[in-house]
Each structure stands twice: as structure tokens, then as C-alpha cells.
């Protein structure tokens, strides 16, 4: 069913190590996944699991230590300065905190004008103003916001500007790095609905990063769970929440605070969350989750499990399923 043709982003054995004084931090340690054309692929994990590093490597802020990033058959596993200009247009990113990702000394107009100039999208000043107005209208902000500065507008509105900026170049793949985690639920709902609308309108593919599994359930078509730089489980969203296999996934699901009884029933009950994510400098031997795992066996201490496909499109990396 899945052919190479409709895969927009294919990541194979991607590794990103950082050298620090304490030792080598394996932020991303050999992960593989693909994003289909037009889908929302969700990447979930606790803080420190390396999910943002994946996004930054894909967009070209870091050079991968090892591994391949294939964008529509083109190998882009290098930094953005070594990528072609058109490629930079194709992949855009929205950061977590709009307070720091927008330059406070520039007006919204200048912020949105920059990508138009860099990529030579609009030829003259008049065209650019028209395009900026169009962008602001698209994200439902008043046109006179053009002359405001980021500090003058609210957090939700700032994130709208950041989204508008990402869409100026008409990209095909947008990386959303926790776009709503700094915002209130009422604002979050508006932004998410807008993102879903844009996805249909412009045929975008999203790589959606978040730690909020209930949000993920509502936006993503496929979900991957990351723990200490490795992927534990990949499945389609509906399968994932009905039949979570990896003990870590079950632990995550059981810790979500929910607001109705129907949701309560979906949560695995037997597993209680324990422990904390260890420091990535000092990754435990064998399966990195064994310190917190309620179902650990002897083999988990010494041998790192490999990905196995349990059912179609549902892969899990755990010794419980390797038989």
C-alpha cells in the first residue's frame, strides 16, 4: 500500500550525538521512520527524549552524525547551509515558544517580509505588502498587526504569526515543535483547528512533536513514541490508543489526566508510572527503559531489543514481542 512515491520524508538510522564535557550525549540514537504525503506524523516523548533534536536535524540546524534523511528521493542529510535554496523553501518549522522565536526588535511586517525577500517570492515592495496582508488574513489576524511588535500581542497571536511565517514560502513539509504547549487550551483549540484547515488547503505534511498524547490522538494519523533517543513504538493513531504494546507507552497513557469516563476506560489500568527519565549522558545498558519497566526480564539488562512488526504498520521495540 505504501509505495515510495507517496513518502515525503524518510529517515533511516538517524543519529545525532553531542560531545560535552560530561561525555557523549546520544540525543538521537538510530531512529527510522517515514512521513507520508499529506499526513500528520506525531512524535511523542518526555522532555529529554530527543524529539526536538530530530526536528532540528531534519530542518538542517544540526548536521546528522550518521544516517539518512531522504526528502522525496533527494538525500538531505546535511546542514541547511549545504542544502539547495529550493529545499529550504520546502521544509519549514514552527517552534515551541513564540516569545523567543520572533525577534522582539522587528515588527510583524519585517518578520513576515524576510522569507519573501530571501526566497525572492514577491518582486517589489508593493507585492510583498499585499502578500503579508494575505498571510495575516489567512491566520485571522487584523491587517494592522503588520505594524505591531511581538511584545504587543498575545501568546496565541504570536504563534499565529510564527505559523504564517512558516507558510510564506509555500512549503510541503512543516515541522511543528510543540506549537501549543505554551498556550491555554482555548487558544490551543483555535490554533490546532487552523493547522488542520491549512493542511487540507495547501496539502501540507506535518511532523507534529508534542508531549500531550490526548492532543496527538486528535491530530495525528500515525504516532511514534520516543524514549532516550530511540523509538519504542510506531502505530497508526487509532491502533495505538486501543492497543498500546510497549510498557512505556502504556505507562504514558495511564498517566494522562482525562476529563470523561469514556476516556478513563481507554487507559491501561495495571501500570503505574514510576521513576524518571535518566540523563542521556549515562544511558542504561541493554534496553534503556529497563530501570522503569514493570515487565522487565533478565534479557532487558544486557541486550537492546530491535524493532519488530507486530501487525501491519504497528512496530514495537521490546523483548516481550520478539519471540
Amino acid at each position, binding site marked *: 500500500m505504501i509505495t515510495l512515491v507517496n513518502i515525503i520524508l524518510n529517515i533511516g538510522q538517524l543519529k545525532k550525538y553531542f560531545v560535552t564535557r560530561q561525555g557523549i550525549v546520544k540525543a538521537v540514537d538510530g531512529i527510522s521512520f517515514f512521513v507520508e504525503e499529506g499526513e500528520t506524523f506525531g512524535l511523542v516523548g518526555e522532555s529529554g527524549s530527543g524529539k526536538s533534536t530530530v526536528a532540528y536535524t531534519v530542518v538542517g540546524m544540526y548536521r546528522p552524525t550518521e544516517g539518512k534523511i531522504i526528502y522525496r528521493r533527494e538525500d538531505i542529510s546535511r546542514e541547511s547551509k549545504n542544502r539547495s535554496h529550493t529545499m529550504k523553501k520546502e521544509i519549514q518549522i514552527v517552534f515551541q515558544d513564540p516569545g523567543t522565536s520572533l525577534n522582539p526588535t522587528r515588527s510583524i511586517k519585517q518578520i513576515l517580509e524576510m522569507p519573501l525577500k530571501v526566497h525572492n517570492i514577491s518582486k517589489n515592495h508593493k507585492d510583498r505588502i499585499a502578500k503579508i496582508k494575505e498571510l495575516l488574513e489567512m491566520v485571522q489576524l487584523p491587517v494592522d498587526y503588520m505594524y505591531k511588535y511581538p511584545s504587543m500581542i498575545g501568546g496565541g497571536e504570536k504563534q499565529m504569526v510564527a505559523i504564517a511565517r512558516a507558510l510564506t514560502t509555500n512549503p510541503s513539509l512543516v515541522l511543528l515543535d510543540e506549537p501549543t504547549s505554551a498556550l491555554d*487550551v482555548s487558544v490551543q483549540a483555535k490554533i490546532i483547528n487552523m493547522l488542520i484547515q491549512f493542511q487540507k488547503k495547501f496539502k501540507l505534511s506535518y511532523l507534529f512533536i508534542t508531549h500531550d498524547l490526548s492532543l496527538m490522538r486528535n491530530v495525528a494519523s500515525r504516532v511514534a513514541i520516543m524514549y532516550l533517543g530511540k523509538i519504542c513504538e510506531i502505530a497508526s493513531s487509532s491502533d495505538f490508543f486501543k492497543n498500546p504494546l510497549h510498557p512505556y507507552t502504556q505507562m504514558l497513557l495511564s498517566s494522562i489526566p482525562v476529563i470523561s469516563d469514556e476516556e478513563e476506560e481507554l487507559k491501561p489500568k495495571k501500570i503505574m508510572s514510576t521513576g*524518571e527519565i535518566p540523563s542521556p549522558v549515562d544511558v542504561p545498558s541493554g534496553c534503556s527503559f529497563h530501570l522503569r519497566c514493570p515487565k522487565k526480564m533478565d534479557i532487558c539488562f544486557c541486550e537492546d531489543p530491535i524493532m519488530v512488526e507486530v501487525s501491519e504498520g504497528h512496530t514495537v521495540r521490546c523483548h516481550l514481542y520478539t519471540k
Partner: protein
Amino acid sequence: MNFMPKPLLEIKDLHVWFKVFGGILKVLDGVNFIVWPGEKVGLVGEMGCGKTTTMKAIMRILPIPPAMVPKGEILFKGKDILQMGQTELQQIRRREISMIFQDPTAALNPVFTIGTQLQDAVRFAEKSGRNTEKEDIRTRAIQVLKEVSLPDAERVLQNYSLQLSGGMRQRVCISMALVSTNELLIADEPGTSLDVTIKDQILRLLRELAEKRSTSIILISHALGAVRGMTDRIYVMYAGSMVEVAKTKDLFAHPLHPYSQGLLTATPRLTGGGIGEGIDGHIPEYISPPTGCRFHPRCKQAMPICKDKKPPFFKVGENHEVACFLFQNYR
């Protein structure tokens, strides 16, 4: 409910204003709030709606000036906290009310060890502290650290806060609050800055400890899910006043105020099916807040009366009250 004893904490018509350069920020606009002995109460609302300000007013740790309290009473066991002298106030902070703050990193002093800070708290809590042996204080500190299930308590005492993880820091903060609390524990978003699995552990710990000591808890959160599993009753707050109060079960089953409904529909659910509309607009500016009901500019069901008059609480069921004119002739 008649046999119920007197409320442990009762806030009546509390107003808190802040004097700033541009004028006066009228943040709290008549807060009414009750906690019964042994009860676990939730307080939810968006950022900047005055949840923390209310709690700081209870502890009397608002910076005065710029803050001022032009009107209102905070009765703790029948005595007004706002009228208390320093000695009485210290007594309350020492033995009866304590607070856990949102960000454990900011709540702990980075230049003193956990041991120094925690033992200070112990010494303060035990009034007879001057005579207490150093060894006793240390034993008590280790004992409370063990109570919050921190492994290796002796080592933690020697650590600085920066050497601990977020979850451990929050546990230390909880243990500090536990040293003194006997009556009321205020937890101001205790899990917000932590990961889901850690948040779950912290909330579970709080619940267990509260049940063991039959302490009353006020749990503040902007996430509805976090308060659902833990509280008996929930207050919903918007822009400086309470808009709805109900038993936790009733509130989630039948939210009545348009704001509570908006919050609930905007929350993403595990069952899927997309996310609701959200609420247009944002929290008003407190320098010139909207007249009447402060929610009316964002309310889809606003009526002419909402602009002119602030709605009082209307009773719509047992323990269920709504501050909205839609329910003035309920039933």
C-alpha cells in the same frame, strides 16, 4: 449538609488591585470561595485569571504595594487573615497553611543545600526550635523526605537544587510544605512544569499524603484533567471572579457556564474525534475590564443585561452554582 462544621476557609467578596504606572489593575473582582475541613477543592481557569493572586492573598504574601486589598474578608477558622498581626500570621504559616509553588526551580534557593533549606523549615515549624537538638531536626528532615518517597534522603540533604531533577525538586518542595501543614495545603499547579509521568506521580503522592493526614487541599491548575482525578469540588475562575462551582462529577457531566463549556470542549480527548472550537478572544486587560460580566465580550450567548450587571451566583442544584444570567430563572 447542615451537620457540617464551620468552613475551614471562607473568602468573602475579595478584591485585589495592583497599582501600576498606567493606572490600577483591578485583578480580583469579588472572589467568593469556601473550603470545608478535609475537603479537596480544585480551582481552574486560564493563565492570568487570578488563581495565584487569590492564593497569595490567603497566605498574605502579595507584595504590598503595588498590591492592595480594598475590600473583602479571608476567614480562616472564623478569623480574618487580613486583619491579623504578624505574630498570629506567623503562627498560621508555621502550623496551619502552607503552599507549594508552580515552579520548583524558582521556589528553591540555588545557593543553599536542600538540607539547609529543609532544616530551616523544620526549625521554623517547631516553635520550640531553639531548644531542639540539631540531630532531631536532621532526623525530622530525613523523615519528611522519605515520606515523599525520595530515595537516598541523606544524599539529597547535601545536594543543591540544581543537582536534582525537576520531579525531585518538586518532591522536596512538597516535603517542605508537609513539615508544617496540618490544616490546609495550597498546591499551585504542582505538576505543570513536569512531564506527564512525573506529574502523575506527584499528584498521586499529594493525594495519598492528604488522605493520610486528612488535610484540606486547594489544587490549582489550568488543565481540567489534572483536577478531575483528585478533587471533590471545583471552582471555575475567569478574569478575577468565580463563574461556576460544582461537585467535580457534576461539573464534568453538566457544565453550565458558557466559559466552563468552552474550556471543556476545547480540551483534546483521548477518544479522538477532533477538538472543539475554543473560545475566541483572550482574558481582558485589567486596567479597564469589561463592565458587567467580564466574560461577555467573548460569550456567544451574551444578552444586554450582561453588559450592565455583574451576575451573582445562581443556585442550580445541590452544591452547584453558576454566575451567569442565563440561569437566573432556572427550574
